[in-house]
């Protein structure tokens, strides 16, 4: 019979050791994520150089070939090279979420800093606005916008950028509130420096790591949401295709027993999103440790 106390002590030891292991593993994982994302960005930039075929070259005799030396990931229902399409698709698949994150970060940080700095009715109004937007799921807002303005990359990116504002605004507001109370900001205020200069030259640069961590996490979610909207046919329109649209186009071939045209772009989405969330967690962890 084991004594409960020894058991608990050993679990404590175990947790401490595994926590250290996780910290090391955490660094290795963050590094792996950075490498994976670096490769994806390079692939997107170098698409014209590294893609073995023209991604839109239709060749019906070559339709639905299994993976081979000539076509590493096979061909799709129109005989287009799947690998080349995945490589070219990296461009829109990365630029779309980038647009969402840049837009929501710009507005979200402005709203968050403004509410933290001004407080009072500005804060109350902004908080209500954020609360209402929170209740409106991003994909639904995007579908509403598509229903009004028609499908396209621009509609979905703008709609998701608006829908993601709350995530950026809330994080920014809470860290900016804490930063506002710090002695150096008070000192600058006493010296008579203008609110605009304090916030833009000191406060925002100081909270930037928190914002970066949140924005990186949002990048992954935005990629899932945008790919889903493209999958439904609401995002980027043919002949251009991001990975989401490619998965949708591959469904018919998958039912006929050729899964590569749908599963290859799907797998790349998963790799990208895992990398963004690991990187986001890694940055958040580092920020927590240095600020603690």
């Amino acid at each position, binding site marked *: 019979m084991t004594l409960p106390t020894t*058991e608990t002590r050993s679990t404590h030891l175990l947790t401490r050791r595994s926590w250290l292991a996780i910290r090391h593993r955490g660094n290795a994982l963050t590094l792996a994520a950075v490498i994976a994302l670096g490769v994806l960005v390079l692939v997107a930039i170098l698409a014209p150089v590294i893609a073995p075929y023209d991604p839109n070259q239709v060749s019906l005799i070559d339709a639905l070939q299994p993976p081979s030396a000539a076509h590493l990931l096979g061909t799709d229902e129109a005989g287009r090279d799947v690998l080349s399409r995945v490589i070219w698709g990296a461009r829109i698949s990365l630029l779309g979420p980038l647009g969402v994150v840049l837009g929501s970060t710009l507005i979200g940080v402005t709203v968050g800093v403004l509410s933290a700095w001004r407080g009072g009715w500005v804060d109350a109004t902004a908080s209500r606005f954020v609360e209402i937007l929170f209740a409106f799921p991003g994909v639904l807002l995007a579908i509403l916008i598509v229903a009004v303005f028609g499908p396209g990359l621009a509609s979905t990116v703008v709609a998701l950028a608006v829908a993601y504002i709350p995530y950026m605004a809330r994080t920014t507001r809470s860290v900016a509130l804490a930063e506002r109370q710090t002695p150096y900001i008070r000192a600058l205020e006493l010296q008579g420096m203008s609110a605009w200069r304090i916030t833009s030259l000191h406060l925002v640069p100081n909270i930037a790591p928190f914002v970066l961590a949140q924005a990186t996490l949002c990048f992954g979610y935005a990629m899932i949401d945008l790919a889903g909207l493209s999958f439904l046919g609401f995002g980027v329109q043919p002949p251009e295709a991001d990975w989401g649209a490619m998965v949708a186009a*591959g469904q018919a071939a998958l039912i006929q027993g050729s899964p590569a045209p749908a599963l290859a772009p*799907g797998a790349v989405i*998963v790799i990208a999103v895992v990398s963004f969330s690991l990187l986001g967690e890694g940055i958040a962890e580092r920020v927590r440790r240095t600020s603690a």
Partner: protein
Amino acid sequence: MSAWLLPLARRVGSLALVLLATSFIVFGAMYLAPGSPESFLVRGNSVTQETLQAIRDQYHLDEPFLSQYVLWLGGVVQGDFGLSIQFRQPVSELIASRVPTTALLVGYAAVLILVVGVLVGVLAAVKRGGVDGTAIVVSTVAMATPSFVVAMALTSLFAVTLGWFPAFGAGEGFGDRLWHLTLPAVALALSSAALVLRTTRTSMIGALGKEYVETARVRGFSSSRVVWGQAFRGGIVPVVTLAGLVISGLLVTTTIVETVFGLNGIGSLLVQAVNVKDFPVVQAVILIIVAVFVLSNLVVDLLYPVLEPRARAKGGAR
């Protein structure tokens, strides 16, 4: 009791405000479109002069903007979403015929999320080691996998290669329906189950280290009684809050999953309505999903003091 009632009243008030704002966005969106509202409403659909007049009447387009909104909202509150432009049939009937499929699908997925997420989460927290490591890796990947990618992988393996489950359709009769809805439910549930697993694990690890759990252990309670009788009661509270959020959020993802598997539910109705430019249906489905989403958040908030005795003692304040 009044200390509990006041925050409740505030919550209901803010809920009403959110719903009012949502309805305004959903109604006002029509005016953002280029051209007049009636040309927007009928675009792409060939309509007779009577239908055009019916649409004008439906949206009270002869009234000023604000009375249009108030009249429309008055109908919506009574469950009257007007007529579908495509089918010339009440939108409420159209939606009602689609509700059973979506309800069964979401219910099925919710059971999967709770059973798999909570059980594996508790197991990972108790066993640690290899079980825990595997659970973390699998859940990290699962959380990053969009529902349509899960759907494709499941279809390829279980419908095309193995032939165990159908790739399309909702089936007839309860057993057959469950069989048809299995792959869609897994596709819908996977990433949420992973999130619930993670939260359960973290929360249970915290609860297992608490003093009262330690006391139970020292008093010689069996380990299953320590885990399920003591730690679980405290550890489950954050999971309930999260589960309420993710399960109501599934309604949004049904747009994708129902479309992939050819199911006639609310989600695929919304997608079809956007494609055939049937705006009254779009408005109604979006409003209903947001309302369900917001209401379930309220229910979870109300459940919180029931589940968490300390919050009740503090008068429901969090």
